[in-house]
């Protein structure tokens, strides 16, 4: 109703044309959100370990934890040094008919971070992101983006966010450059279009019609459209799907630069390495709920069992070794002289194994710790391959 108070078309609202404008302007088709905003508990301070090559906008604090179903709650890290969350989703439910696409989902995105949303097809990733973008109304739960209700405050929110759809979004007859220029014109202080085209390797296809661009070029143009308005927050739905390795690298690089300049990013992805490379926080969604979240390191460390392998002389007394190790650790001699220890492999365990070997005069050789990848974690948690 806001535009009525501004006086736009008030006199024509009674006419069908006015009604059309009104309906199209406000999207009355969708239902109102059920409940009002509730304050979300301060559990957004899940921080991650520094990684080389990535500039951090935030100081890192101890107290990193991941939450697993039935597992321990995260430590509430001290709030000092962290910024306000820019996305707060609490108890989000979105149904299509009888099926709940999103079923009580919580998501907190801290300012200046990259959050990757992972999940198998149909897990509710896109529904969640599109609810944050204001495309859908929550059936229940609260959604706040930059402190605003994405539907009720859409007019104030839209200029501040950048959106990259999974596909499309461009006039088929438009040329790449003129589409980007047009999007730039809709913003007050857009990026330099030429530099952005160059940055994304689109410099040579500016005059090419959108429908004649390759899939990868279309992806990069969609990314450019999302960032050209200099948003505070970008939502990227599978930003590197269909890109060749070089273009992926260049997209990752741009995302790192955005992050370094203080832009917050929420991305969905099918690529585990993308999440590992880029994300400060990873949120794993399955069947409309968050089943794990934390930094990539936390997710790979916690929950999943790791494996320690070494070789030594055949026929070691593994019973004696196990006595020195924590409960729940398993040891086996796979072939003569080749040993495997499975369990929660941490520095303490490694030290215990090494000292046991020293006591028994064993020269342990070829010691290796097999860290679980995000892919393993994902498979363990969901029982599904990510790219199913």
């Amino acid at each position: 109703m806001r535009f009525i108070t501004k006086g736009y078309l008030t006199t024509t609202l009674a006419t069908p044309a006015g009604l059309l404008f009104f309906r199209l302007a406000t999207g009355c088709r969708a239902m109102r959100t059920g409940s009002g905003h509730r304050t979300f508990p301060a559990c957004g301070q899940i921080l991650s370990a520094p990684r080389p090559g990535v500039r951090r906008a935030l100081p890192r604090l101890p107290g990193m934890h991941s939450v697993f179903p039935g597992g321990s709650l995260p430590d509430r890290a001290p709030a000092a040094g962290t910024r306000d969350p820019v996305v707060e989703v609490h108890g989000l439910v979105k149904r299509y008919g009888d099926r709940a696409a999103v079923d009580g989902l919580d998501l907190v995105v801290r300012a200046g971070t990259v959050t990757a949303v992972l999940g198998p097809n149909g897990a509710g990733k896109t529904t969640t992101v599109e609810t944050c973008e204001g495309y859908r109304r929550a059936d229940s739960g609260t959604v706040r983006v930059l402190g605003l209700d994405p539907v009720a405050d859409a007019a104030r929110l839209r200029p501040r966010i950048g959106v990259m759809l999974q596909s499309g979004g461009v006039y088929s007859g438009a040329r790449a450059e003129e589409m980007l220029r047009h999007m730039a014109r809709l913003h007050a202080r857009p990026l330099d279009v030429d530099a952005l085209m160059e940055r994304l390797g689109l410099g040579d296809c500016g005059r090419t019609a959108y429908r004649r661009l390759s899939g990868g070029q279309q992806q990069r143009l969609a990314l450019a459209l999302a960032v050209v308005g200099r948003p505070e927050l970008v939502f990227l739905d599978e930003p590197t799907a269909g890109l060749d390795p070089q273009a992926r690298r260049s997209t990752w690089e741009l995302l790192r630069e955005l992050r370094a300049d203080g832009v917050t990013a929420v991305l969905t992805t099918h690529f585990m390495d993308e999440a590992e490379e880029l994300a400060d926080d990873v949120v794993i969604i399955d069947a409309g709920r968050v089943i794990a979240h934390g930094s990539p390191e936390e997710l790979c460390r916690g929950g999943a069992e790791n494996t320690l392998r070494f070789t030594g002389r055949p026929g070691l007394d593994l019973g004696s070794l196990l006595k020195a190790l924590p409960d729940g650790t398993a040891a086996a001699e796979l072939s003569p002289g080749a040993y495997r220890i499975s369990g929660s492999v941490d520095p303490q365990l490694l030290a215990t194994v090494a000292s046991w070997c020293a006591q028994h005069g064993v020269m342990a050789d070829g010691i290796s710790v097999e860290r679980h990848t995000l892919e393993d974690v994902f498979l363990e948690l969901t029982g599904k391959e990510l790219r199913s």
Partner: protein
Amino acid sequence: MTADAVTSSATGAVRSAGTYAPAPGAAPLLRMIAAQTAFETKLLLRNGEQLLLTVIIPSLLLVLFSTVDIIDTSGTGTGGGPGSGSDKAVDFLAPGVLALAVMSTAFTGQAIATGFERRYGVLKRLAVSPLPRWALMTAKTLCVLVTEVLQIMLLTVIALLLGWSPQGAATPSGALAVLLLLVLGTAAFSGLGLLMAGTLRAEATLAAANLVFLLLLVGGGVIVPLDRFPDAAGSVLALLPISALSDGLRDVLQQGAATPWGDLGVLAGWAALGLGAAAVFFRWE
């Protein structure tokens, strides 16, 4: 990781820090509407199929049927007016072709373009841009009006070269009647076009919009006088928006009649129906 670090710092040295520092904000509203209108108009005028529909077909029909004696237009000049009109083919055809031009842009062209914008996610993408939905619809309407002005200018020049002598357009009441007819006709056809674009698949819209264009061209009094049809058919066809528009324009421009309230009423009814239905049934995705 090491490679990344190198790349990262190398790139960092090239780009100036803060390039992407957030500075969000919408452009001023009028500038957005102007940009959207200009962009959509440019795309439309560059589209070959659209030009065929909006410019080439109306122009060809006007030239062909005015110069070759295919349609018998005798008696059309005095049909319902005060008797000051002429039976010349171009005097009959020019108002009909102007009506056709309005239909081709407001209905067929807009339906096809909007249908494919919906299909390709353009409407979805623009819905999260700073451009409000009503501003997008305003821009679309302005784009249709700009195109119509260009069409009418071109067709008027062609018709005048063919010897057209419009009757009522010079008087203030005649000019106002023509303007009203064009505006209401545009509203009626826009509503129907958006209804089609917002409910059917893009391919279905493409096919249906072209079929309707063809049927209304033949059966809507554009080139074939409605009194050439059997009486019953003729009186039903007279209720079509294209018939009302071409008949109304002809009343004024061929026969010099006063404001054709009946035709304006029919157009207003279609406009209410079409825009109302589009408002209820339009789907953005």
